[in-house]
């Protein structure tokens, strides 16, 4: 091959190489972040969950392969696990029931007030999560108006709300409501108003239009909102800690106590891992069934 030909053919290759290198350089910060703050902790957590105690030294653990950590943790704490998912499930459902009409109203009838209404939805988040949850202690206090009202109707099994499961679920619902409203709003707002008109043109009453057009078209928002509510609610411990009694502890509380009080790192890690795995399985099944795979 003549030198001229070599020179000509070499040039584009260099450009192509440089271009692909640019891609990697741009990916580097993200990948580094992912490695340091996700991959390494993930592996560490998994290793910790399999550690075994150092004999004779309380709170000291060494590397091992104790699969029994998982079995023991589950045997002991399965009621809290179950409770977490039930509380989170009820809270998610309640949040959906409250958020859907609200998001629908803001998106469809909000008009020029929409930005303000959305700010109002997020506004409470400017105050600390902890503070707002504490506030619920006052709202639901034993002599408070809400408790008195329900007591007058003899609707409360324990004659109180605070320090019961009801308070925990109420707190969860309240705290994660914005995460339900916002995706719902985004989905409903995106619906072409002409589809609603077309539906009413094709003999649907307002209720039928909601059932046959608006609801199915807002499903991506419903799925996103329920996930954004359910996942953090299932792992939450603040609400159970501040609003519930020891009988209402959720898995988050168990993990926290094991880590910080009992220093039982393997059990806490094993519980964290199981929580993660169960949520992943639930999420996948849910998305499959809702037919919204494009969200993944």
């Amino acid at each position: 091959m003549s030198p001229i030909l070599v020179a000509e053919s070499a040039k584009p290759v260099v450009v192509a190489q440089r271009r692909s290198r640019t891609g990697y350089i741009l990916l580097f910060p993200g990948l580094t972040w992912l490695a340091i703050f996700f991959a390494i902790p993930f592996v560490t957590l998994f290793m910790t969950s399999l550690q075994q105690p150092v004999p004779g030294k309380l709170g000291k653990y060494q590397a091992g392969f104790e699969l029994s950590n998982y079995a023991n943790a589950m045997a002991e704490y399965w009621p809290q696990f179950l409770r977490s998912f039930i509380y989170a499930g009820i809270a998610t459902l309640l949040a959906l029931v409250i958020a859907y009409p609200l998001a629908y109203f803001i998106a469809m009838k909000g008009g020029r007030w929409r930005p303000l209404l959305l700010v109002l939805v997020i506004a409470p988040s400017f105050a600390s999560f902890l503070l707002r949850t504490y506030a619920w202690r006052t709202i639901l206090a034993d002599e408070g108006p809400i408790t008195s009202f329900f007591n007058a109707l003899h609707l409360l099994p324990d004659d109180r709300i605070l320090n019961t499961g009801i308070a925990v679920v109420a707190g969860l619902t309240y705290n994660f409501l914005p995460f339900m409203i916002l995706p719902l709003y985004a989905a409903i707002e995106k619906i072409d108003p002409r589809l609603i008109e077309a539906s009413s043109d094709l003999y649907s009453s307002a209720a039928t239009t909601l059932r046959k057009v608006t609801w199915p078209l807002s499903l991506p928002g419903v799925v996103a909102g329920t996930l954004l509510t359910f996942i953090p609610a299932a792992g939450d411990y603040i609400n159970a800690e501040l609003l519930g009694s020891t009988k209402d502890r959720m898995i988050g509380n168990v993990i926290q106590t094991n880590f910080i009080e009992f220093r039982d790192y393997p059990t806490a890690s094993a519980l964290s891992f199981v929580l993660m795995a169960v949520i992943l399985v639930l999420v996948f099944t849910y998305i499959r069934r809702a037919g919204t795979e494009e969200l993944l």
Partner: protein
Amino acid sequence: MEDLHLLNLTKKFGDVAAVDDLTLTIPAGSFFALLGASGCGKTTTLRMVAGLEDPTAGTIRIGAKDITNLRAFQRPVNTVFQSYALFPHLDIFENVAFGLRRRGVKDVKTPVNQMLELVELSALARRKPTQLSGGQQQRVAVARALINEPDVLLLDEPLGALDLKLRRQMQIELKRIQNEVGTTFVHVTHDQEEAMTMADTVAIMNAGRIEQMGNPATIYELPKTVFVANFLGQSNLITGTAQGRNGDDILVSAHGQTYAVPAARSTAAGDSIIVGVRPEKMTVLDAPDGHKAPASHNKILGRVTDVSYAGVSTQYLVRTPWEQELTVFEQNVIVGDRCSVGDEVLLHWAPEHTFGLDGKQDVHAGVAPEVLDLEAAALALEPRGE
């Protein structure tokens, strides 16, 4: 089937009347076009008939039945929406079946399949709307509306989103479907060619009112207002004064020239009268051959300022001595030299092609604003007195 009546229909948005005291009867089984520029109130009219907009005043009737206060879903009327508004979460079959299912029809399969056959989409029944081309989506929209056998089918700029070639094809297709089902079609469009080729009756709307209504050829040949003369096709309009009569013709003098306008073709009330003629009705002669023009014809002398050859025809712009630019279309049937820019020419046309309009109107009514700007710019740039 029954006629659709609009009686004194008015729709105000704030202080602006989008539709202004409109009274109109659309005969059953007709293909009716509401033609107008955007913002003329045609879509608002359609939406009021569909029940998607509440009239401020007036009545809508189908036959003897007053439907003014019925909700959209209670009206025997269906709409083909602009850009179709097909339900993206349903497949084609379910989109078409939607109306039947809402009315509790048990067997939807047979009618839906028949309807898909009518619009030639049977093979695509299980596709989602996004998987279809624009033309196919358009036909689904028609099928979805027609399957309900409405008394009136409303079409809101149904072909607006299609490219030119497909639009021509769909015009023929829609016409065929209308012939086949015999339903009243009310078609809203800003495309005059579309309105003229498809509709049996065209109503030209301007500022919430109907300027003129009739079959397309009649309106084109004999516009009754300046707006119609300029909006539907093009017109050359010369303002003059009536100077008496010659038999059945009104003699109009303008810029030192006298034109004959058949009295039956004039809508002028007073002496001020606008003489109008369509560009293709005029003939161009080189000025030296001017004597060849028939004596009875109306004539104007001028100078050619522009020649555009467009295959089928040639468009001349001719500047009159009083600095008005006239447009002439001439069929390309002459062998040999055409006139060229700068030639002195004589324009002539038969009095029976002339129409007279009331002189109190703005001669630019109905001309697109951008065209007016261009004309003003051209006049300003033109070097004088060469």
